[in-house]
């Protein structure tokens, strides 16, 4: 009954990820500074396409980081998060368009709704493990999508819901926010992205995060150490679903039209996973990096005009023409190739690559230092 002894591997010493020696990065201060800088962007950037790029990046950050809570930390690879995105988008839009309930209430209800839905879905799918869980999560999201397509009387089915307008938000007597143009959405998306990243930070640095990660690494071992897997997986999913639904609501209000295929399609679920895989799964910074890379890549290939607005290229530049004529419709292809490359060659994502690279440089520096101290050898 004695277990076969696995060959001993050389232990890896953990070091915090440091960009510069003696400087923990990104520290709390760095995050605050970055957020403050981002908040200033609309004061200098007025071009709509550039603001659009930022909004899309923030939404992607929110989606990726939201998925990261349950997928990255708790290790439950849901490929059905479109269900929560869709619940968020539909709750907000239906309340606004069919019942005239303002979106700031609608978003709250959407989040609540998604959390309730997540508890139900979790109770069903968390009984499954590994690849079976993945299959189950896909099936649930597809059931939600087909349901939304089928119950036309309730959701207007494939016809979709078109937003007629968002009422202005009155905060004080003389301060109202009108939801026209890109700027209000810029701040709404930025705020959401910051909140989700903060939630990831919170998860990583509390008991909850330790428990999530323990379940990810070995559910049975975690169970024997006093961790209730069902409860903690549900908590992770609820946090994740809440932010995903929020992102869905904001997306719907921003693009002003939704139908089941746009907001509950399998692509939505897959994209949320890919953002994390490309950046680095189960880290705070990973989804942020992944969101930037994926959004810039796909939006550029889809519409390279923002490069012109950013002043990087002139309108007649051959680069823009080339992208528009030759690379239109290829964004999914490039994105696919990028993901295949990451999975094959950088399983820990871009952050993992960066970490390995800095480790290699440090080792080389150390080796160089040793050699320098023994000049007589050669």
């Amino acid at each position: 009954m004695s277990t076969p002894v696995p060959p001993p591997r050389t232990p890896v010493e953990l070091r915090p990820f440091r960009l510069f020696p003696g400087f923990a990065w990104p520290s709390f201060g760095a995050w605050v500074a970055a957020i403050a800088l981002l908040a200033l962007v609309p004061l200098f950037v007025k071009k709509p396409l550039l603001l659009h790029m930022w909004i899309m990046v923030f939404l992607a950050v929110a989606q990726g980081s939201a998925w990261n809570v349950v997928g990255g930390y708790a290790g439950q690879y849901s490929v059905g998060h479109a269900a929560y995105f869709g619940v968020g988008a539909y709750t907000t839009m239906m309340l606004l368009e069919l019942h005239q309930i303002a979106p700031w209430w609608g978003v709250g209800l959407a989040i609540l709704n998604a959390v309730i839905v997540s508890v139900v879905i979790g109770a069903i799918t968390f009984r499954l493990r590994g690849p079976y869980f993945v299959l189950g999560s896909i099936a649930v999201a597809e059931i939600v999508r087909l349901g939304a397509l089928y119950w036309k009387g309730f959701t207007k089915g494939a016809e979709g819901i078109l937003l007629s307008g968002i009422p202005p938000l009155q905060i004080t007597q003389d301060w109202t926010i009108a939801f026209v143009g890109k700027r209000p959405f810029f701040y709404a998306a930025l705020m959401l992205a910051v909140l989700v990243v903060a939630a990831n930070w919170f998860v990583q640095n509390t008991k909850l995060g330790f428990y999530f990660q323990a379940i990810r690494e070995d559910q049975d071992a975690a169970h024997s150490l006093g961790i209730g897997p069902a409860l903690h997986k549900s908590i992770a999913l609820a946090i994740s679903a809440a932010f995903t639904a929020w992102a869905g609501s904001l997306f719907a209000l921003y693009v002003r039209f939704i139908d089941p295929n746009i907001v509950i399609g399998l692509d939505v679920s897959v994209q949320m996973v890919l953002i994390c895989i490309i950046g680095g799964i189960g880290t705070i910074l990973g989804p942020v990096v992944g969101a930037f890379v994926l959004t810039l890549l796909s939006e550029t290939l889809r519409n390279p005009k923002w490069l012109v607005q950013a002043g990087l290229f002139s309108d007649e530049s051959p680069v823009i023409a080339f992208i528009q004529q030759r690379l239109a419709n290829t964004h999914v292809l490039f994105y696919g190739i990028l993901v295949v490359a990451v999975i094959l060659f950088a399983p820990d994502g871009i952050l993992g690559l960066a970490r390995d690279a800095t480790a290699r440089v440090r080792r080389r520096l150390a080796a160089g230092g040793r050699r320098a101290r023994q000049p007589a050898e050669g």
Partner: protein
Amino acid sequence: MKHTRGRHGSHMLILQSILSGILVGGVYALVGIGLTLIFGVMRVINFAHGDLLMLGMYATWWIFTKTGIDPYLSLVLTAPLLFAWGALLQTAFINRILGSLPQNQILLTIVLGLVMRNTMLLIFTSDYQILTTSYSSSSFRLFGLSVSQPLLYSFLVTAVITAALYGFLMRTDTGQAIRATAQDREAAQLMGINVSRMSILAFGLGTALAAIAGALLAPTYYIYPDVGAPFTLKAFVVVVLGGMGSVVGATLGGVLIGVAESLGGAWVAGLKDLNVYVLFLLILLFKPSGLLGKSRM
């Protein structure tokens, strides 16, 4: 497919549904067998399976429009072609991630499917292509039931191929080696079986089976880049129903899903797919080893 609208209606309608369900189910079985073969040997869930079927459809359509070769005849070209493609995918991609997390394997196959879909989109655009043969819409009459000709032919081809595959797996040395690999990869390797060669073979075979299914469907379906996705999901249902890795199970599962879908569709058109997923989820939860209760080939 046209349903009989006789006055003695409902019984005939049900019989008709069952019959067309069985015929379509044969093709589902073929798709499912390919998927189950890949899963059995590699423990990899191939999310690109429907896209391989899509490639088979396009290959058949392309050969037909360029040369006029009948889709059933061109199987001798498309099957080996797609076998080679599958073997290539296995060597270049799948083999490298066999040791990594199952979740990463799933994502890799999802994205490979995405790449194949979009490549076809770039080459052939998203337009629906139609492959019309002389028998595309003709049917036999049998005891008052209509039997679609292309569906009947494809069912016959399916039956022959399934039998041949079964014979290959049970009777030949290579087939035995594949089964041994599926049962216990490490033990098979210790016995001197070239496991990596068997994997290439399995993925190639699985791809070829999906492509054959695509070719058989080509005369009755619109052909477009996204056509594969519903088949991927349907293949999962078939495979889970029959028990992951079981060829016999997948065959039965395919026919069962064909009939269930056809019967469901006869009553509530929009709920057809929904029912399939609900069924799928129920099986995953309550009978994860499949209806036959074992997961071996």
